[in-house]
């Protein structure tokens, strides 16, 4: 629950401040043991140790949180880079496919015109020898009717 605002705040703190704070906490704990030999400081050793331990725990946690955040940001940057490359490849593939489709469709349209011209050329000849029965046309139209596939 508190992880996100803490990580957000920690993002503004330079890394070296966290490192110094951890080292200072360790030094505080060490000092709390070493300063026991000086009589007039001995009184403050226990509070110093408690504060240093608490600070050490807090700053080590923050260091971990910072490292974790950095690791995730790195992963996000890597994923974003991969996605960007994939999107570029996808766009390129679509352009290639579109060009191929245009060429193929153009060829079909040209062939359609050629076929119609051929039919026109021999129109008289094929009509001379054959008369189509209206029933045959009705059957062909029925077959082409697309009744099952029609949406409307």
């Amino acid at each position: 629950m508190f992880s996100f605002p803490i990580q957000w705040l920690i993002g503004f703190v330079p890394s070296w401040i966290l490192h110094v704070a951890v080292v200072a906490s360790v030094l505080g704990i060490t000092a709390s043991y070493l300063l026991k030999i000086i009589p007039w400081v001995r009184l403050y050793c226990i509070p110093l140790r408690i504060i240093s331990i608490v600070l050490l725990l807090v700053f080590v946690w923050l260091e971990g949180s910072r490292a974790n955040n950095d690791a995730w940001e790195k992963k996000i940057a890597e994923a974003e880079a991969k996605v960007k490359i994939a999107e570029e490849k996808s766009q390129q593939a679509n352009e290639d496919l579109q060009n191929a489709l245009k060429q193929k469709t153009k060829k079909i349209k040209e062939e359609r015109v050629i076929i119609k011209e051929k039919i026109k050329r021999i129109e008289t000849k094929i009509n001379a020898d054959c008369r189509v029965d209206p029933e045959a046309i009705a059957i062909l139209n029925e077959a082409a009717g697309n009744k099952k596939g029609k949406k409307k």
Partner: protein
Amino acid sequence: MTRFLIVFSLLTLTACSTPVPVKPKFPGVPQELVTSCPDLGMIDPNTTKLSDVVYVVADNYANYQECKIKVDGWLDWYKTQRSIYEGIK
């Protein structure tokens, strides 16, 4: 108490795991593929000319060829986009 503090302090060091919040956009499709195939042409029922029949049949064959190009295009699009987006993982 000391043991509890050690375990508790170790727990505070554990990090939360969250999924990477990066989602790729759905890939686009060439404009040629988003139109549906035309219905088959019908022959004028009042005609008796074979040439009229052949015209319509040839036209329908051409429509089929164009439709086949679209279907093949979709297959090609799917295979390519799939291989590209599987490469992200």
